[in-house]
């Protein structure tokens, strides 16, 4: 059994050290049967993506799109909690900068995010673990930390109800604040909160997350996901989201198409990025895209491969990043300098947003350092290829053959069509492991 010690991030004011959890009483205004009667929250039912078919609405926009309804709701409710002092610190008072370099990694000096507490043990060798009601989970958050209910509506139109009762019989999903925010507007999306789903991807939940990205209609509002073993600290299904008004380095990385599925989903691999990742986009509908990604993630889960997901570009682009940092850490294979920064490469870090605790780390932050840290999380090229094979099989692109000449590879798909696929690198040699001298490959 592989374990590492970490101080978990506190995402709710009701989250305590595991040991002290016996004193679960109430009067805390939580979501348990004790407090839920009479509880009300605004409900935002977004438009059904199938019924309002157009994925991209840019063609007849008259202007830079105004702040959308969902964005106003998120920001307005967040600002309300901000002014009420529900957050552990004022994230806007944390200095932040873009690190000079080709990719524009973002560094933030945040001494308050991480507690100086005794670290807890996390098991990092199992991506699938059952829900444990005795541990902290989102049914224990105070209702004041919840902003609104969110669901995929039936209609072609948005429906909003400012004050809807929370109905335990009717499985509802909520958006909550993260009391240790990385940026202004950092929220958690918790699908079907009372169903107490463990942290694992399922088709319905991922689709809900994609709906939210689409509905926010702002490419700077992304959703992220960490699997167990990839730095999720709470084993209760949740996604995170926040606003950062610039592209993530991950979004800037060049890509190379690998394959297109029957439903038109294009899968590419990232080039020249410290963490080997896949990009899913296209598809004849957003559901096709979301389902393909879910299929891939279920495959990773079943093969016990930790991974992170970034939903970007209003749900049009979904990155999947398999990783192995925690395993390396447990086996003592991560370099001490990297460990000392205490930066865990979860979805936001891999995307290029680094929250640093120590002033020295912040002052000395460089693209090289960021690269080196993230490279530790990446699968090796060989392992990445193996994992991709597993994924392609799972999503229905099987019997991949490698052409030793390396230029064209044909793939059989079940109904007999033929795909063209390039599987090797043409330019610049193989993806490096990102050591300092090899980073300069970009120049």
């Amino acid at each position, binding site marked *: 059994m592989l374990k590492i010690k970490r101080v978990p991030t506190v995402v709710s004011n009701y989250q305590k050290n595991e040991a002290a959890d016996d004193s679960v009483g109430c009067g805390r205004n939580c979501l348990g049967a004790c407090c839920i009667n009479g509880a009300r929250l605004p409900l935002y039912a977004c438009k059904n993506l199938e019924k309002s078919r157009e*994925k991209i609405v*840019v063609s007849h*926009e*008259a202007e830079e799109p105004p702040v959308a309804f969902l964005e106003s709701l998120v920001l307005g409710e967040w600002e309300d909690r901000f002014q009420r002092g529900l957050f552990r610190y004022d994230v*806007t008072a944390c200095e932040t900068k873009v690190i000079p370099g080709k990719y524009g990694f973002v560094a933030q000096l945040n001494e308050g995010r991480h507690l100086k507490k005794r670290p807890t043990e996390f098991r990092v060798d199992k991506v699938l673990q059952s829900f444990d009601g005795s541990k902290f989970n989102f049914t224990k958050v105070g209702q004041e930390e919840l902003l609104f209910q969110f669901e995929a509506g039936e209609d072609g139109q948005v429906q*909003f109800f400012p004050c809807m009762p929370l109905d335990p019989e009717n499985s509802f999903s909520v958006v909550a604040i993260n009391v240790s925010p990385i940026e202004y*507007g950092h929220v958690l999306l918790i699908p079907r909160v009372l169903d107490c789903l463990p942290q694992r991807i399922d088709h319905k939940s991922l689709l809900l997350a994609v709906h939210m990205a689409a509905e926010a209609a702002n490419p700077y509002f992304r959703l992220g996901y960490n699997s167990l073993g990839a730095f999720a600290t709470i084993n209760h299904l949740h996604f995170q989201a926040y606003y950062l008004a610039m592209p993530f380095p991950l979004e800037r990385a*060049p890509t190379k198409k690998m394959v297109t599925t029957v439903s038109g989903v294009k899968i590419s691999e990232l080039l020249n990025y410290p963490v080997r990742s896949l990009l899913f986009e296209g598809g004849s509908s957003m559901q096709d895209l979301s389902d393909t990604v879910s299929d891939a993630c279920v495959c990773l889960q079943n093969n016990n491969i930790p991974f992170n997901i970034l939903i970007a570009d209003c749900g049009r682009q979904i990155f999947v990043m398999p990783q192995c940092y925690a395993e390396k850490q447990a086996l003592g294979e991560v370099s001490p300098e990297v460990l000392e920064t205490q930066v865990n490469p979860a979805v936001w870090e891999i995307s290029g947003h680094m929250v640093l605790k120590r002033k020295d780390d912040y002052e000395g932050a460089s693209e090289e350092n960021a690269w080196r840290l993230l490279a530790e999380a990446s699968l090796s090229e060989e392992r990445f290829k193996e994992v991709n094979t597993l994924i392609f099989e799972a999503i229905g692109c099987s019997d991949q053959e490698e052409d030793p000449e390396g230029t064209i590879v044909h793939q059989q798909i079940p109904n007999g069509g*033929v795909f063209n696929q390039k599987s090797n690198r043409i330019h610049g040699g193989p993806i490096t492991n990102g050591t300092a001298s090899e980073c300069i490959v970009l120049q």
Partner: protein
Amino acid sequence: MSLAEESSVVSVFTEEEEESLNRRYTLWIKEALDELPHNFTITDPFLSGHPIVFASLGFLKMTGYSRAEVIGRNGKFFQGPKTNRRSIMEIREAIREERSVQVSLLNYRKSGSPFWMLFHMIPVFGRDDGKVINFVAVQVPISGRDHHRKLTSVGDDVSSLDHSEFVFGSCRREVCFGNFVQHRALPVECDDDEQGLEDWEYCEASESEKLRAVEAINNVLSVLTRYSELSGRLVCGKRYCLRGVDCLSSSLVISLGRIKQSFVLTNPCIPDMPIIYASDAFLTLTGYKRHEVLGQNCRFLSGVDTDSSVLYEMKECILKGQSCTVQILNYSNRKDKSTFWNLLHISPVRNASGKTAYFVGVQVEASCRNTESKELRPETKQLSVVGAVRVAVRSSFMVTC
């Protein structure tokens, strides 16, 4: 909505949009620009929505629209479902970072038919203050006959194609246009070069097309420079001085322009805490023009019957760096010179350094407080403005070098 179907053309642009170029460059600028043969558009980032304020005759011919249908629109208007997302991001980032960009782009004509063009955009700076005055974009149609890549799809016999499935990322152009692209003439089946061009992943412009783009940009810039000399407020293609501290970047202004409610930003670090930004809705609410309010302290909205204890309360909050909400009687400059009760919320706003850079003031006219049941509560709406401003201000200083 389809302007194409209406027999009489409806103007979508405002007076500000129509007059934008005249104000900066003197009255004859449009005639001078009309003499250029190129396809180009000029936008004004300081107007809400970052609209097009000039479109050349060549551009109109290329896209099939009339001038009235284009002025006031954002450049996104010409994009469509198959426009490459990375290219859109590159353009957005170039605008945000106030720098130039050259990228192949799929656009759509009024008829709905798509076409590829080489899009080359540059910022135009005020020589004295380093502010971005306009963005100029040139569009050179490209045929891509020899240089394009198709998306492969089920059933295609693609064995004859030797193409590198390389999609350009959005890191610096120098990286992307380094050794990767040069003259890869790809053998392409010619039978469907017009149809299916929407599905091309990428369409490379030829060297001569790229040169034409550069030439066009230089010509447009020359005209603007010359006419800016006449008006005494020079512009140029390079930034000659760092933008002044009290000058908002064009990208911040564009972000703030997305917020449709009434609000102002004031600068507490400058004596008498002047207004440095006012939304269109603020101007409508108060009846003032933009040039009348910028640089002024908000006290011009107070009058004889404004409660001075409320003003005192606000002043105390500002000194302490706290938020507050007050109900204050304001005097408008609207035609009827009416007074109105302003439910005003003010709050300090920090920038990327973590220090307070501005104060935001969000005005809600008290009589408008009745919510429709399907809308956000007025309090939420008001606070959402504060939130949106916080995000915009915090990100605006974080520009990549």
